[in-house]
């Protein structure tokens, strides 16, 4: 016996269908730009690719990558680069935000000025720095020599230590403004009464920062740090342009290793395996970020 659904249930089912229909284009679009490339990358990581030919090799590429010292070296460079760069982004970003927050005049102009490096495309900024740091004709060496700080040109990108410091410095130059902007927004949400109460209790400037500002910014700092770590660990542009991972692999972070393996080494299967491993690292960080933001929003709700 056929059963007929009540009109309300039919209307509900129809509405649900409409919902699916409205969501479908976005879902298909996301599949096309995220799910399919990810699936294809994973499939490629299971192949031994030689140009246009490929053979299924299972997890052989992962075994090769994990057995290769270059991967572990690159991973350590990635962590070092991310750790130093993010720490500097946070410290300098917060310092600049505090400075701007204190200013009563020229704040808007300075905010735009400090944001400029962030507006420049990373590859363009890196190319400019490449020439500024050029040993023979670069402005940096010229100024240092003119100031009597060095007597011979320094090879900023030619030796491991200075090359690492240079790419970190350029990344900091570019990354600080974003953190500064976040922190500035956070500072403006700190209730002024808390500062007034602290001042009345005789708190010094440091104590006000330590016991009022920092606790109020704690959640924002964690979110900004996590987001910045996720961004920095998969960063390619600056290092790709400035050193291509050299000298002697001293700045070869994972994305640069991936690029070099795929396009210079012509080993797309191994490169895809590196990409998947990098994705796992980013996913772990993203999970941490989501957990933190969930706890933060629950705290906010309470």
């Amino acid at each position, binding site marked *: 016996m056929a059963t007929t659904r009540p009109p309300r249930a039919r209307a509900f089912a129809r509405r649900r269908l409409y919902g699916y229909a409205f969501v479908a284009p976005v879902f298909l679009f996301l599949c096309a730009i995220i799910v399919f490339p990810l699936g294809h990358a994973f499939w490629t990581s299971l192949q031994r690719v030689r*140009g*246009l030919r490929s053979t299924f090799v299972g997890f052989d590429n992962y075994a090769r990558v994990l057995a290769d010292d270059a991967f572990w070296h690159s991973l350590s460079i990635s962590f070092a680069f991310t750790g130093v760069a993010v720490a500097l982004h946070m410290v300098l970003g917060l310092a600049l935000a505090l400075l701007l927050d204190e200013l009563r005049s020229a704040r808007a102009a300075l905010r735009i000025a400090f944001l400029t490096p962030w507006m420049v495309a990373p590859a363009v900024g890196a190319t400019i720095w490449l020439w500024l740091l050029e*040993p023979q004709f670069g402005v940096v060496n010229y100024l240092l020599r003119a100031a009597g700080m060095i007597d011979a040109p320094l090879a900023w990108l030619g030796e491991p230590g200075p090359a690492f410091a240079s790419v970190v410095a350029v990344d900091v130059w570019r990354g600080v403004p974003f953190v500064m902007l976040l922190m500035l927004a956070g500072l403006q949400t700190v209730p002024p009464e808390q500062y007034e109460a602290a001042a009345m209790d005789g708190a010094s400037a440091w104590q006000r920062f330590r016991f009022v500002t920092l606790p109020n910014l704690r959640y924002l700092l964690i979110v900004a740090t996590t987001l910045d770590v996720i961004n920095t660990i998969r960063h390619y542009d600056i290092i790709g342009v400035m050193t291509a991972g050299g000298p002697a692999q001293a700045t070869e972070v994972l994305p640069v290793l991936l690029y070099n393996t795929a396009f210079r080494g012509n080993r797309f299967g191994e490169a895809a395996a590196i990409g998947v491993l990098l994705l796992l690292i980013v996913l772990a960080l993203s999970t941490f970020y989501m957990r933190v933001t969930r706890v933060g929003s629950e705290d906010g709700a309470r």
Partner: protein
Amino acid sequence: MNRIHPSRTLPIVLAIGLSAPVFAQQPIVLQWQTANLTESQYEPIWKKTIAEFEAANPGIKVEPVLVARKDHWTKFVAAAQARKAPCIVTVDLTTAAYNGYLLPLDRYFNAEPAAFRNAWSRDMLASAKWKGELYGLPIWGGTYGEIYNRDLVVKAGLDPAKPPKTIDEYVAWGRKLTGDDHWALAVLGGKTDTTTRVLLTWIWANGGEAFNKDMTEATFAKNPKSLAAIKLYLGFAAKNGIAAPSPTTTNYLEQTNLFAQGKIATMRNAYWSVAKVVGDNPALKGRMFATPIPANVPNAPTLASVAASSISASCQYPDAAWKFIKFDADKKWAVQRAVVANWMPLRNDVADDPAIQADPMLTEFVKMGAHARSYPLPHPAWADIGANDVVDAVQKALLTPERTDAIFRELDAKLDKKLNDL
């Protein structure tokens, strides 16, 4: 029955009617990508070549793809992987052919008259073959020689008429050419295969070999003469040496900059670098001279890069692409490329051309070409080996010279594996 008003159908009919002839006249568009299209000295010639070709072939348009030299290979690989590579390309032929990125050209080449086919020597054509099939037509090359700044040589009290012939003599000159803020040469250690090219010339000049004959074994450290040459050459970059500082960031571009600015007195380079130097510093025009690479063995080979035009496997119009390659390979353009842009001609019938004979430096380079080995070396993994593995070893040795032996032993071991892992 619903009737459609003529005012609605008329625009559609008109649009189809007007666009039909446009579609019918769509020309074939051939994309053309070589590493040197972005170099200013070549620009007037390739523009003229395209203009004349298009005038002679109204149904075909040639679209140059301008890519910086260092991104040339990676852009090609990315496009080839997507089956969207430009139709006409000049790339590392063996690697590209092995990977299936190129179309064999024997069908086209063999259909040409004998006069055309005989314009290239058997050896020259062999350098464009992989597994017996022709994958490119050699168009231009670059023989490496030693190029000196005449004024700096004279200023150092040296006689340009008696240039160094042996490595020892070269080192003695180098010491005299080095001063407080200028040096004899630049050691190349930047992350491109130019580093490898120059290193190979030093190895060969000392009677060494970097690989065995069939390229199944690397001998950078295994061959004592190779290792001695490597240590001598990289040693120039040591403190108080005769080479400019910062070798690990020095490439073709930095070397020619240093030479054009008078910071280095000599550079090991191909003839095309002369045009680049004059472009950077016109005062140096006519103030340079070239000699064969100083060597410790008689008739030591130098390196000659061979740039061959190929058709990518994904090209939809291979017949039209061959037409353009043939046009571009004509003697007329070979002479112009040599005289104006300083790309060395690779045809047999060009060396005696009066325009080439009138240029003494070009004639000198043509002579040097008689003892040249073609480059890239014929191995499918060469693009990786030449631009990555050897360069990394050079950089490591420059940064930790005391480990040079070990670094090149490690390189040999790594390459032995890679050469046999196809």
